[in-house]
């Protein structure tokens, strides 16, 4: 028996745990023993099959397979579970380095991610963008990726992204025999307004609420009969959100890439995401989940954008309850036996609901067919903790036909968006970190309020029978109203208006 084999070659890859990138050393040692290849270091099923792909790829490309030796490939750190086929390329590189076909020193600079075909072609894997960012942060100078994935990986700054077609090209590039083809970053797509607020007729209160929601990041509840424009308004709210910064756009793209929703050659969009999960969505679909490393759900996919939950009251209560903590913390924490995965989810939530089970309560067009006690039970599902997290409540009514046919009677998105951006800037300057009034510290809010105004708010909350939590929520909304007006201190008018956006518990009775 020989002693411990010396490590012969090391290639570098990246494993993703949620959005967190962990550098992985792919170590390859050859030694005496029965010929064969062993892959160790917690590979999952797809990764274990990697051996077959790598062997076929190396042989078909006319490269040398380390035959006649016992070969061990270790993925370190060994206790980190690794998933997916993206390690095919680093494993192949480690083997090629161990057999002297590529210079080992080149592998310190060039990290790699990609799946291998049996013919030796290099294929793209989902999640290249966060892998590339992770590689750069862990010290890589360059990254070898499939041609198809190069535009996405090249979005990451200060990283030499090289697109490769097959293993032969990889070997040529690393030996300096072939010219490196640098990845060309995908074009960026400026934020585009598709739905204009000017198209909305009537609904003056709802339009104002939409503006306030966009300016302060306040979660919004729209209640009204079918066809009164809830979804329409929600889409316009999306148009009011300021475009994403490049960093934010990359973060959003990284989550989409992880979820496998992003084509690698897709332009980098600066439009905030808009997610509209159907009301039959499962808890895992909403907050994320799945076997192995949990995948991002709709909440994370709506990060820095808008989550529109239509038919809120048709969604089962446990699923709605699962929203509460992530909304409060701005991140989803998914804890599994081996791992804890965090996904950011700073979302603006817009919930839409019918006023009653049949939807026509209060509609002038159709009579409601619900028994009043059923309406009351239906609405009571809204009450409590969930309602408390929705800062703005608006009851919509259908717009009369003559106003629908009439001329536009409201401001355009462009005009409102300017006010929204100005208010957001004020809030960001006050709280730092680009924070919104939704997430502002309570003490800070109180500091910008006169005592007299706070007392007015307290008495209004008391008189109108609102919950104690409504005080805090209304103060946040009032802060945004003051910001929209460009005022440093929260005034009486601001708190009074803020209270008007709270649905009282007894909305059924006069």
């Amino acid at each position, binding site marked *: 028996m020989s002693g411990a084999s010396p490590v012969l070659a090391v290639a570098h890859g990246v494993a993703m745990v949620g959005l967190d990138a962990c550098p992985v050393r792919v170590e390859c040692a050859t030694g005496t023993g029965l010929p064969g290849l062993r892959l160790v270091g917690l590979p999952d099923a797809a990764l274990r099959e990697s051996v077959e792909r790598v062997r076929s790829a190396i042989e078909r490309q006319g490269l040398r397979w380390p035959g006649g030796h016992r070969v061990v490939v270790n993925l370190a750190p060994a206790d980190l579970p690794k998933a997916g086929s993206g390690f095919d390329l680093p494993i192949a590189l480690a083997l090629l380095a161990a057999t002297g076909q590529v210079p080992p020193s080149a592998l310190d600079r060039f990290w790699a991610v990609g799946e291998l075909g049996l013919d030796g072609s290099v294929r793209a894997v989902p999640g290249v963008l966060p892998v590339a960012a992770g590689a750069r942060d862990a010290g890589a100078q360059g990254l070898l990726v499939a041609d198809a994935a190069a535009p996405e990986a090249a979005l990451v700054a200060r990283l030499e992204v090289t697109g490769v077609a097959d293993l032969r090209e990889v070997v040529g590039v690393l030996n300096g025999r072939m010219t490196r083809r640098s990845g060309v970053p995908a074009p960026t797509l400026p934020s585009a307004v598709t739905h204009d607020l000017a198209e909305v007729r009537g609904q003056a*209160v709802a*339009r*104002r609420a939409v503006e306030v929601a966009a300016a302060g990041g306040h979660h919004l509840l729209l209640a009204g009969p079918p066809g009164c424009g809830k979804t329409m308004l929600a889409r316009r709210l999306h148009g009011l959100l300021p475009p994403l910064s490049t960093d934010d756009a990359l973060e959003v793209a990284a989550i989409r890439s992880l979820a496998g929703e992003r084509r690698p050659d897709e332009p980098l969009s600066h439009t905030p995401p808009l997610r509209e999960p159907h009301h039959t969505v499962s808890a895992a679909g909403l907050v994320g989940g799945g076997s192995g490393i949990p995948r991002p759900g709709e909440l994370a996919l709506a990060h820095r954008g808008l989550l529109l939950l239509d038919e809120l009251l048709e969604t089962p209560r446990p699923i709605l309850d699962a929203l509460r903590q992530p909304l409060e913390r701005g991140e989803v924490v998914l804890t599994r036996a081996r791992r804890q995965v965090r996904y950011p989810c700073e979302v603006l939530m817009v919930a839409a609901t019918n006023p009653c089970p049949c939807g026509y*309560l209060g509609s002038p067009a159709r009579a409601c067919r619900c028994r*009043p*006690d059923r309406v009351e039970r239906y609405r009571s599902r809204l009450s409590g903790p969930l309602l408390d997290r929705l800062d703005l409540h608006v009851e919509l009514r259908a717009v009369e036909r003559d106003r629908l046919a009439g001329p536009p009677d409201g401001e355009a998105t462009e005009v409102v968006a300017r006010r929204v951006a100005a208010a957001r800037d004020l809030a960001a300057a006050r709280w730092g970190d680009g924070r919104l009034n939704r997430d502002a510290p309570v003490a800070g809010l109180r500091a910008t309020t006169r005592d007299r105004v706070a007392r007015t708010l307290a008495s209004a909350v008391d008189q109108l029978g609102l919950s104690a939590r409504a005080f805090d929520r209304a103060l946040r909304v009032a802060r945004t109203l003051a910001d929209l007006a460009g005022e440093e201190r929260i005034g009486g008018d*601001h708190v009074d208006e803020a209270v*008007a956006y709270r649905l009282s518990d007894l*909305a*059924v009775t006069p």
Partner: protein
Amino acid sequence: MTAALHGALDRVAADGTDPAALAGVLGWVLRPRRTAAALRRRAADGANPSAVGMGPAAQLRVLAGDPPAEVHAALVDLAQRWQRLGVQVALVGDPAYPPRLAQGWPDVDAPAFLAWRGRLPVDPPTVAIVGARQASGYGTGVAAWLAEAVADAGVGVVSGGALGIDAAAHEAALDGVSGTTVVLGCGHEVAYPRPHARPGGLFERVLEAGGGLVSELLPWQPAAPAHVRARNRVVAGLADAVVVVEGGARSGALVTANAAADRGIPVLAVPGDVRAPGSVAPHRLLGEGAAPCVEPSDVLAVVRGGTSVPVPPAEPNPTPAGPLPADVAAVLAAAWPRPVRLDDLAVRTGRSVGTVLAATTRARVVGVLAEGPDGVRLRRAP
């Protein structure tokens, strides 16, 4: 009758109600196989000749006799449950039992006993204001207007405590001198309708304002449709006039109106929008000869006997609009008692939504504005 049973019942019996008689009637009610036929047989036996010709409720009182031993425990439990809620009980014919419910109308279906919290409307003239649960803003506005005006004039308001019109009437009458009376469609332990029964809800405020909650049912009996319909006759029986504000073709308000008509209690109806579904009941009543009610004096005239009594212009509210800006108040006053949607308020005054919302909130806080599903309206007549 054991001392324990006597003591328990004595604690819930109203002034002038005999615990022994109470035990007899309630014992009969609690009996597993009590039937009207069994009671008739007892009457026919001639055990008590005075029972012949009486209505069933009065007969029960005379014929029930001592409760059998097997219901003693249930009776004690019943009395304790009532006592925990502060309920008083009286039998038909007792001094505390409202005489107009027992006499003056055929004694066929007066409740055998009444259980109430708070105060019963015994002497003051009383008006029943009833209507649909699914009320429009116009309906609740009119109900509140009528209720407040008659309450200010010293007339009690009785209704069914339901959502919608009933609630608007009770709410508006809270501050009146006579208080307001809710006739429940369920027992006292049942929280129905829930928004009114919860702490701080309408029922609690009715009691605080010196009004009463009445039920003809055992404390645990639910708000079954039959119970709710039956309570409408009690609403009518406690009133000197019945005003129907809004209701559909099958509204319980029609039951109340029919019960009143049967007993010769005047029925008034508030005309509504001819095409609104909630106008069916009042318009049908108007067609059948009910008096139109277009202002509070119409009701007061009927209650006070024939002559039209103008509502005392007492305390013409100097500031019905409170802190509202003049133009906003003018729009609301013009629409009153119809509510105005906040969107429209902003459009018609040309003000920004923000200022309208702030102003209406202030007005709601000081109580000059009422908010409903159809918008806001002035609480008091402009």
